[in-house]
């Protein structure tokens, strides 16, 4: 219990420091958040144009797609606000900059991911909430399902990204590849699952687990299939554990950069 409380205090302190850092550059913070919001709204114009011409696309109506967008944007936003450091891991490994974290008493992966926060994530969260509200699928009574889905989605995103960015432990200069893999994961969360079939569908529930970030949560909220609650919880725990395991395994191969510097 003491251990859990110590970790909670540690994460709160890291979160507080990240917030202070972000607010120290208020203009930059607001700019990033605002433009990410505009970015997400812009991409939805494509669907708006499509649904002006057809009512359904393989059983999906515009409200379902808004729900899909809301879940994906909010999950990713929560992930990059709370664990924005995950996107820097490849670079830290390549440059041998993990040294200061390895000697810390807390788990290295947790320190690494929580040591940065991306202000653009606030824009993702705001646009996510906007899309959820506009979808007509989320109301006060089932809003807890949306919150649950977003948190599980954020864990799956984090697990996937942690595994992709940890590839740098085995292969050199993988930042572009890792970013691409993470982008593919994001990309697939934005399209209805009825578009995909065969082996690709298996990929979307394993290698690129978009299925657990948006497809199943959409069914949970839209059809109120509560049986999916434990499935999502298991998927969140499973993918996060997998990401952590890949990172931990990789640290055994890590070579120090023998650099002097300050972490922060």
């Amino acid at each position: 219990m003491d251990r859990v409380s110590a970790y909670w205090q540690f994460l709160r302190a890291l979160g507080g420091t990240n917030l202070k850092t972000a607010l120290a550059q208020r203009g930059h913070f607001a700019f990033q958040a605002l433009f990410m919001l505009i970015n997400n709204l812009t991409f939805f114009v494509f669907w708006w144009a499509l649904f002006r011409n057809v009512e359904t696309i393989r059983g999906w109506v515009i409200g379902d797609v808004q729900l899909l967008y809301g879940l994906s944007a909010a999950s990713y936003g929560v992930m990059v606000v709370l664990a924005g450091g995950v996107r820097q891991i490849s670079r830290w490994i390549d440059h041998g900059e993990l040294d200061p974290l390895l000697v810390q008493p807390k788990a290295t992966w947790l320190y690494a991911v929580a040591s940065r926060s991306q202000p653009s994530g606030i824009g993702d969260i705001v646009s996510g909430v906007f899309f959820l509200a506009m979808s007509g699928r989320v109301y006060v009574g089932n809003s807890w399902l949306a919150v649950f889905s977003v948190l599980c989605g954020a864990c799956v995103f984090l697990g996937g990204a942690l595994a992709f960015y940890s590839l740098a432990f085995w292969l050199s200069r993988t930042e572009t590849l890792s970013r691409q893999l993470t982008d593919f994961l994001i990309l697939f969360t934005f399209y209805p699952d009825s578009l995909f079939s065969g082996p690709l569908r298996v990929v979307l529930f394993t290698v690129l687990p978009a299925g657990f970030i948006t497809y199943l949560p959409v069914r949970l909220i839209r059809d109120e299939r509560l049986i999916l609650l434990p499935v999502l919880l298991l998927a969140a725990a499973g993918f996060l554990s997998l990401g952590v395991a890949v990172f931990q395994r990789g640290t055994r191969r890590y070579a120090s950069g023998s650099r002097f510097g300050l972490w922060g």
Partner: protein
Amino acid sequence: MNTLLKYWAFVRVGVVRALNERGELYGRLLFLPIILGVFYELWSAVGEAGMPTASAPHDLVWYLAATEWVVLSPPLIFNDVQEDVRRGDIACALPRPISYLGSMFCQGMGMLAVRAPVLGLGLFACALAFTRVLPEPSDVLWVAAFGLAAMGFIVACYLLLGLAAFWLDDVTPLYWIWQKSLFLLGGLMVPLELYPEWFRELGSFTPFPSLLSGPASALTTHVTTPAGIALATQLLSWSLGITVAGALLFTHVTRRLQLKGG
């Protein structure tokens, strides 16, 4: 002649840079089959739903391949200009007997000379694999000619974006606005005829439709010689406009350049 040789040297620098920065290019190549595969499925589904469009799903996949080619090929040269401004390196470039903007543009074109053929071939192969239909050679020629001209214009726009670093700390948000305007008003993912009338009219006041929809429309509609002349005129006028704007802006920013330290 000597002046041309100086600029040619910068084109070669760009070629070498693009060859050395292969990682990003490979990443983009990896992206192509995925995005075209997703859209192939999407257009098939939209076709099943009975969307009233003159184009067949495979034409729309070729359309997307063409617009993605124009968007993905130009190097993000504004990052280099931004770094030069931030570090003050631009001050060292000014006394050189060559225009800074001209040299950066040539470098960008050199990078484009490597990226455009590689990505073009990748997109062609992916689109062919998904649709199993070959477009008319004359349509491919249209896309290649106007697409390359559009890419040159985009490189010039990136230079202008980079110059905004004289006022802004980070020009990335400005790039996002430019990029999203291009996607929307240019018709990146869907031909402009699927958008409402007012939206298309709004786009006609900008260069964006002539950069994406203009070159790619040959793959979805029948194009004529007058349409080609109109598109060439539009591209030329906008290019002239951006050249003048770039020259004026650069003169203005270098006048107010202040150096601190050495």
